[in-house]
């Protein structure tokens, strides 16, 4: 069971308190009516689905009811960071090769 740092509550919480809401950073096209069916289909249905770092949207449903983003490795399930909506991740696929693996969970009180 995942242990997720809620950036609003400032604590690690059990996965049971959260709801996963899919890939993050998929902005709704500003002018949907200008989209072709293909572009609209891409927006609605097509996803990166990577093996590796995934930026995804979570909702702390049982806690503060806020959405936030997480960068998670879809193979090891390690969560490298959680961050606020509207901000960008520090860990990305490009930077991953140089970024050290997080040795300590975000928010872990030690």
């Amino acid at each position, binding site marked *: *069971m*995942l*242990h997720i740092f809620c950036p609003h509550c400032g604590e690690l919480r*059990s996965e049971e308190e959260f*709801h996963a*809401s899919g890939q993050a950073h998929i*902005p*709704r096209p500003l*002018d*949907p*009516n200008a*989209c072709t*069916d293909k572009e*609209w*289909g891409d*927006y*609605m249905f097509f996803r990166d689905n990577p093996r590796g770092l995934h930026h995804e*949207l979570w*909702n702390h*449903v049982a806690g503060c*009811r*806020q*959405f936030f983003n997480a960068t998670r490795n879809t193979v*090891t*399930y*390690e*969560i490298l960071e959680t961050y606020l*909506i*509207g901000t960008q991740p520090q860990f990305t696929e490009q930077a991953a090769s140089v970024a050290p693996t997080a040795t300590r*969970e975000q928010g*872990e*009180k*030690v």
Partner: protein
Amino acid sequence: MSQTHRLPNGGRVDRNKVLTFTFNGQQYKGYEGDSLAAALLANGVDIIGRSFKYSRPRGIYAAGAEEPNAVLQIGATEATQIPNVRATQQALYQGLVATSTNGWPNVNTDMMGILGKVGGKLMPPGFYYKTFMYPKSFWMTYEKYIRKAAGLGRSPTQNDPDTYDNMNHHCDVLIVGAGPAGLAAALAAARSGARVIVADEQEEFGGSLLDSRESLDGKPAMEWVAKAIAELKGLPDVKLLPRATVNGYHDHNFLTIHERLTDHLGDRAPIGQVRQRLHRVRAKRVVLATGACERPLVYGNNDVPGNMLAGAVSTYVRRYGVAPGKKLLLSTNNDHAYRVALDWLDAGQNVVAVADARSNPRGALVEEARAKGIRILTGSAVIEARGTKRVTGARVAAIDLKTHSVTSPGEWLECDLVATSGGYSPVVHLASHLGGKPTWREDILGFVPGEAPQKRVCVGGINGVYGLGDSLADGFEGGVRAASEAGFKAVEGVLPKALNQLQEATVALFHVPHEKGTARAPKQFVDLQNDVTAAAIELATREGFESVEHVKRYTALGFGTDQGKLGNVNGLAIAARSLNVTIPQMGTTMFRPNYTPVTFGAIAGRHCGHIFEPVRYTALQAWHVKQGAEFEDVGQWKRPWYFPRNGEDLHAAVKRECQAVRDSVGILDASTLGKIDIQGPDAREFLNRIYTNAWTKLDVGKARYGLMCKEDGMVFDDGVTACLADNHFVMTTTTGGAARVLQWLEIYQQTEWPELKVYFTSVTDHYATLTLSGPNSRKLLSEVTDIDLDREAFPFMTWKEGLVAGVPARVFRISFTGELSYEVNIQADYAMGVLEKIVEAGKKYNLTPYGTETMHVLRAEKGFIIVGQDTDGSMTPDDLNMGWCVGRTKPFSWLGWRGMNREDCVRDQRKQLVGLKPVNPTQWLPEGAQLVFDPKQTIPMTMVGHVTSSYAHNSLGYSFAMGVVKGGLKRIGERVFSPQADGSVIEAEIVSSVFFDPKGDRQNI
């Protein structure tokens, strides 16, 4: 004679407490402190079961979790049956009733054994894939017999009388295993002030020290254990869990512990006690001190009762004071196993010989054995054992490890116990649960934990650290490390002194060769529980199975309840040799939870029966019950379905309720509808974006119906939203959709349009909603309210505030029945009082409570949809003939607009919602029934739609339905047909979906 094999003294059993138990109908005696296996051995019971495939007699083989054979049925009553209990892990209690799981008529004379002997040859691995295919129709019959023969114990057939629960923990350090390394780690971690949990699967802490010959600080090792436990118990944040197996190591350091609270007391928990508890632990650091498990050697007839794991012999002698035989022959490839011979000798028993696969062993224990005159045959191994129901002898011969061959005819030695040790396998199970591949270490001939995303420290045997002194040091150091990684400062500690003895390396021997070759030699078992032999593994590789997973799956190696604890490494070694690769090249299979099996009830905890899931009730539930309502599950809610009177059935009650609403007035508890308070200057704009229709011009005091679509343009919820003030709205949603809609609003506000200033708050529970519906609703309501209900003053689709039955209320004049209706919203605390007053006042109007079924009928008569019943996530507003609710010119491209304009969504001939009127007015179209234009076509038929709602008992006097039909809106007046399961066909006319009061006059009166 009682306890024939009990030694005159020794062991940790309490000889003053004699316990009586039954095995296969016969009564025996044992002592408190015995395991069931120990007690059976004490009584000289050799055969405890029959093997699963060949029905060979089997005896107790091990002393712990790795036991493959002694898997018994326990339980004195039907309801308390427990299948597949390992006798080695079951504490003896007074009155214990155990039986074997296989064997007919009994385990000693098993008829299936004869079949096994004859048929055994016909049952190589995978034989069932190669046969039972013809004739085709016979498989189900074959299968019935295969199923009967398979399986071990049986499930009870009555409900479990016991309770179970879960408990959540958080700790800094969880220590798995309370042997020397685990206890040392626990002391180190606990002294630092960390929150520590120590869990161990055995009845008491101590691990290998429970039967060790070794001393600490010159005293018996168990004295140190007692001291350590006492110290740990004295610390405030330390939890000690004996009889508690850590079974699963899940992601992010979440582990589960299965604690058996009362299994040592009986098959049923004492009154008021929980039988088993599943602990859910989040640990900052985990110390794995799970030790190592002895491997047997694989030789001919190694399954005959009297063959036993070497270490198990020591356990029975030293811990339980039981000698599982008289004359011991030990076959080993390592030093450590020599302690068995020494223990045996100390117990006054006869050691026939030790066969050591090494050519010139010189370790300390070897020398001690030599000095005590034990005969040691070097460069040799037990090739095969003899005996049917008990070992009577074994042949020891010289072997060549390089060529894997027997180099001398050897010698038959008379013995009744063959103890075998093929080295030690670190218990890497938990360390591998997250997919970490264990790594092979040639120096210890075992797999140690590999890399894994686990925040853990491995100590002691699991690391291949076997010496007692080393193990303690490794444990202590690991405990310090774990605590410091969890943020605690380590405290110095002094470790007890252990005697460091010279130990020589183990030699690689897994499968003992036989002159006849593996295929023709007496059966050499690798996995005793699944009857997998060395020959089977070789055959699998011969047939082309090269991957370890293939071999495992083809032979069933490791698929038993012991999950191959004894056999996996040996099987791997045999496969590797026959494929001419090394063991690490062969790799290992995956380890998955559980380490040992866990009771379903313990996992389920208290979440069963009436608290399986929450039941939601409205504030009026007690009244509904009093009225005799029948209830319907809607999401988590229980809603009154109908209110039968005088033994009415559903149809009669609904007909009466419908009529009452149409003729006079009815009352419905609508409190379950979702209600969301919306405030903020951008609330209106938000509604514009989220609903399909326009909200710009809705004045304060008015209410409007709206549809919500997903981005794909498909309807997913609906409801009425009212404007309470310029920046203030209250939205209603469907009962089942309430939470989903709130989430939907939040996700768009928080992630897509954070610039819109608007807040959403659920008020579903705050308000109770009473709907008065029917021509007399105005009259009735006027008697209990100060609100001016005049038609002009309070028109349709508006709301007013005022007192109802003395309670401040918001009253909405909206209608789901097509009748004059008022929805009264009051703070839920006061709902019952208001209801009672309305009911009192309503007597003279025959005020009739109605349930969801009547509500459904009445709305269907009006053609109003129910999202989720008339829609299925694939329907646009136009499909529902609700184009009037689509704001085609709204400036912002609202949710769903783009989606509903995709190519397939705007094509002709989509399925559209229409009314359906059976040609025979008494015929009922089943809800869900498929429709065709041509009922005479052959199967597969071309289906053109289906019935979504259908009501034979209503206020109209004839059966009617709603449904979707391909191009239906242009086919009004045409016929459709519904072929039924019984061969009949129901014919219906396609009509408008509004059956009643098409102009809507009645709701406007």
